């Protein structure tokens, strides 16, 4: 079976300008959204209390809200979680003595008011300072990952490629975050992990394309850089699409069957894989081309050597 015809020769770079404009617009829009609307940070980042309660029947959210108001909790967010029987209640951090007891109090209040046999499924309390620390750590993690990757790609390829791949990563991360800002889906710790996984995935894609560009530069001696890049993109297209499909297959399974707790995780990764696939074709190689890659940049002798000692390994 073939998805991509074998004699494919799409002129990807014909719409280079259009792609560049699209990417820049999307990135600016994402930054704008992040600056104005921001992310809907979850408990992990904001601090506060979250209680998940399981009812026997469909829960009446308004009743839950008024029951809590009667118990003295008026600034709460009440939502269904996963099913209509599950409710999560978020209480913003309150200054006072027993901040860590709020969860239990909320549950007791609901249990008494409803008269039903309700089930405490989750009770989480995160101190406000913890959240700040996590935001710092998360940002730091993304930054450190980007720098390490920049160094590795510089060593293995060349700085122009490294910049290209990091540009693609920044592009993917920004737009994924922008999407989360747009749909205001909760951004919790698992989503942060997903964003970091997007970095890994998108990079994987980019490296495969770069590897082929390098190989073709050495093989097609007289070709133009643009031509080489285009040929490489065509040659790797089948693989790019195949891998995206298999990854998306499992992600869709997670999205539909994984339950509400990892909904955000699956959403971030699905968005990231789609954006990552696009960016490995347009952003990474475009940036590298714009920086003016030439054949001379890519003559590291160790590439040939690596192929030679493979027999021993496999």
């Amino acid at each position, binding site marked *: 079976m073939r998805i991509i015809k074998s004699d494919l020769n799409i002129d990807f770079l014909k719409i280079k300008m259009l792609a560049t404009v699209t990417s820049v617009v999307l990135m600016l829009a994402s930054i704008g959204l992040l600056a104005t609307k921001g992310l809907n940070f979850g408990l992990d980042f904001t601090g506060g209390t979250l209680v998940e309660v399981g009812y026997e029947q469909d829960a009446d959210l308004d009743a839950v809200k008024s029951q809590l108001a009667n118990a003295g909790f008026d600034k709460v967010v009440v939502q269904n979680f996963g099913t209509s029987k599950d409710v999560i209640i978020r209480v913003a951090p309150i200054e006072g003595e027993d901040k860590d007891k709020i969860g239990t109090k909320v549950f007791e209040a609901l249990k008494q008011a409803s008269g039903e046999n309700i089930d405490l499924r989750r009770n989480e309390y995160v*101190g406000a300072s913890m959240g700040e620390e996590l935001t710092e750590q998360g940002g730091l993690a993304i930054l450190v990952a980007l720098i390490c990757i920049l160094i590795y790609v510089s060593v293995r390829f060349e700085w122009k490629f490294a910049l290209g791949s990091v540009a693609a990563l920044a592009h993917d991360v920004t737009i994924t975050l922008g999407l989360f800002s747009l749909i205001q889906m909760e951004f919790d710790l698992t989503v942060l992990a997903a964003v970091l996984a997007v970095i890994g995935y998108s990079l994987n894609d980019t490296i495969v394309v770069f590897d082929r560009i390098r190989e073709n530069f050495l093989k097609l001696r007289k070709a133009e850089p643009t031509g080489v890049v285009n040929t490489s993109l065509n040659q790797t297209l089948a693989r790019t699409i195949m891998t995206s499909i298999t990854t998306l297959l*499992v992600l869709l399974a997670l999205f539909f069957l994984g339950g509400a707790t990892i909904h955000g995780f699956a959403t971030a990764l699905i968005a990231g894989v789609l954006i990552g696939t696009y960016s490995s074709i347009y952003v990474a190689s475009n940036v590298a081309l714009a920086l003016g890659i030439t054949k001379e940049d890519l003559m590291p002798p160790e590439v040939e050597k690596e192929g030679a000692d493979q027999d021993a390994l496999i």
Partner: protein
Amino acid sequence: MLYNQQTVRPINTYAGWKYAMLVIVLALAILYALPNIYGEDYALQVSGPKGGPVAAEMFEQIEQNLKDNGVEIKKSTNEDGRALIRLFDSETQLKARRLTAEFLRDKGDFGVALNLAPATPEWLENLGGSPLKLGLDLRGGVHFLMEVDMEQAISKKEDQYIDDFKSLLREQKLRYASVVRVNDVGLVARFRDEETRDSAESEIRQRFNELNTRSRETGELYEVVITIPQVKITEIKDYALQQNIATLRNRINELGVAEPLIQQQGAERILIQLPGVQDSERAKRILGATATISFQLVNESAGYNPSRAPAGAELIKEEDTGINHAIRKSPLISGEHLTDANVGYDENSMPQINVNLDSEGGAKMLAMTSKNINKPMAIIMRESKGIYEEVDGELKLVDTKLVTNVVSAPNIGAALGSSFRITGRFSPTEARDLALILRSGSLIAPAYFVEERTVGPSLGKQNIELGKTSIIVGFIAVLIFMLIYYKVFGLVANIALTSNLVFIVALMSLIPGATLTLPGIAGIVLTVGMAVDANVLIFERIREELREGTNPAQAIHNGYDKAFSTIADANITTLIAALVLFGIGTGPVKGFAVTLFLGILTSMFTAIVGSRAIVNLIYGGKSLKKISI
């Protein structure tokens, strides 16, 4: 005769030893993944006093008691300090706990906990096989993060230094105007003349060489500024943290939790995970409980093991020996004066406990002991403990009571000051425990709850179910897709992918400390998707070679060859991302990073070496007209 040293191997064949190695590695992976299919037994875990082992006779009695009450026992073991009674269902488990708790109520300080014990067969267990350890989000339980109040730890230490400086200066007859703490400066000792100041500085420097000193003049006063260097501050913080951890560990044993986790996290925090615990309030009450110690004199006129207390004294039992002591109510030196207690060894290398008191405590101790040489002094611990009763199958806190206990009552050998040692017939373990109790009775700095997560058992079960379903569905979807798209080669990739999953499960089961969390499952799912990437790269290369007219056998060879460096580069960069995640992340992010990291390593092995071996087996060593790809 001459032979060519290297025999030329036909194209696309592997040496026999390579197959042997692959088979062995795979067999090992299957063996260590195996414990996961046996499930878990409902079990009762009994622990002895202070979380120690249960004596063999006592364990027999417990078993007998259960049998007498009609509880059917599946299997029971009392090994490595872990007394486990396996039962058939959760109902008998609850009944057995009630019976055992009642049985042990007046027999001492035993803990009885519900547990799920892996039902791994013995032969597998002997080979080191154990199932995956599930995180709290999958098995339910309570997670706490406590933060030690380091400001208090440091200010207490500063107070103690101030006390010590004052008594040193008094001792040396150096008149000071004041010794105070000045914010952003340090500890300041003020003098009226330069000469006194200079000799005071040299005294302080001599006695407290761990501190930094400098001198200055302000107005009419001559000052010594003493600061605690960063190294010492780190030491103070670490001490406060370790002390809290030790205390918490002691208290958690009381909670009757099967496999608690108490761990330092960063420089100021302590992570506590209590699997299976649902009542977080109760856990918090116990963890936050206070114990105090005191040094008091024994009234010997009451005789040995008295049954009535003489006037001005109270009867307190020594827990370890069961002997009563008549303890004088005053004088009393309370534990707040205690600054340190460590185990040391005397000249006969017998263990001893070195105790340090602050200067006020030292003065009191001197007054109390100088008149009572050769008489016993008791070390008494008062602890508030909860009393629990079984209501509707759940333990409920009904009351708290003050438990008083004589830890030890050694004779006073000489007049004691602010630092002295307690000797006796201690074993090293007993000495360590006693030092720990002394220290824990005088926490330098309290710890606060900064994070708390309770996951109910129903949510845990649901998370496991959902995780399993999504792995299976996603996995099968990928298998079908690969089979349709790459035919025979797709089948090869599928075998590689399946063994990859076995490898991940085996490694996760083998690595101590690796726990499977929900994000971890997501990591596995993601690896399943990405693991085929290596094979896709190879197969697309082979197709390309075929299009260019290379003969099939050579195409296979070239495909694997050329794809290799690409696969390596692509995976190493993802490995970097996983490593960064592991290094910086905490909790769930770490869980995800571990599975991603392992998944990349195993997928490289199975996709490159494993799939090549199968392809070689099918197509190797002959000239081919056509291959199914």
